[in-house]
């Protein structure tokens, strides 16, 4: 895969989060902090979410983003960070899971 040498500002989650913040929006940032087995996105990947449910970036291949967005809106309300864990769908309490068979831990925090 070809990587740009410079930031792709239009698609970079952390740049977008900063822009949202400047626009006065409340924002949550989700970060993959641990992975086991086959995981679609590497440790350090971000998903950023606003209170309307808009989001950019990814923490999985689309498998768990919906659940992270829901949790993120809670985190924005409460201001308390959460650690979420996702595994194979039928082995966890979550409604969603990773069909690839891996497990990931996602840290969700409010910006500011």
């Amino acid at each position, binding site marked *: 895969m070809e990587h740009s040498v410079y*930031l792709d500002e239009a698609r970079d989650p952390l740049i977008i989060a*900063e822009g949202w913040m400047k626009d006065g929006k409340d924002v949550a940032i989700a*970060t993959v902090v641990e992975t086991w087995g086959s995981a679609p996105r590497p*440790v*350090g990947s971000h998903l950023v979410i606003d209170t309307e449910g808009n989001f950019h970036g990814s923490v999985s291949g689309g498998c768990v983003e919906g659940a992270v967005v829901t949790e993120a809106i809670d985190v924005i309300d409460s201001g308390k960070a959460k650690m979420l864990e996702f595994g194979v769908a039928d082995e966890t309490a979550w409604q969603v899971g990773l069909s690839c068979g891996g497990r990931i831990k996602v840290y969700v*925090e409010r910006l500011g």
Partner: protein
Amino acid sequence: MDPYALKTLNAERRARRAAILVTDLGDGRDRIVREGDQVAGELGAAIAKAFRTGNSGSVEAGGRAFFLNAHLPQPRLVVIGAVHISQALAPMARIAGYPVEIIDPRTAFATSDRFPDIALHAEWPEDVLKRQPLDGYTALAALTHDPKIDDFALKAALDANCFYVGALGSRKTHAKRVERLLALGATADQIARIHAPIGLDIGAASPAEIAVAVLAQAIHAFRSRGLESKGAVA
């Protein structure tokens, strides 16, 4: 995340400087550490490793759990000279994950026929590097043999602390180059960082083999950044 930390992190990333966001997973507090900042203890050792490898991860230090998110600029290779070696080096480096730009003011050399799909500047290095400065995450290989083209770029690469600086030419050619770079104001310590003759000593003979030697040497330089003081660099 602290809004100030996010702004600082994005400013560093835009400027192609390495930074690590350190988050205390217990209380959620975070801070930005820049390359070269001194951090003591286990956490400092983990941070130094993250700067070297570019790998993010969780770490226990002093009974607390931290997450280190390492943001390293994309390393790249700037080649001075649209020469035969560059024709092999550019696609190889790109495949290895190092995007390439080639600079050569000689329009007969710098043609898209000779370098399909490669970022090519048929201009003097002085002009290109003014627009797109070199930095610590750039490797520079000077391959023209022509002091008028190579010397300025070599001096700029030393001043920008490029992670790799290589120059084509025999020991005799290099001895003359050293004299010229000293005259341009480079220090002896800076000049000692130039790999010349260029490339790992694998007995490379053809232009493509020399390209392999140069790419391998640049990768080694990148992956051993920060290890010089520990004597781990050959």
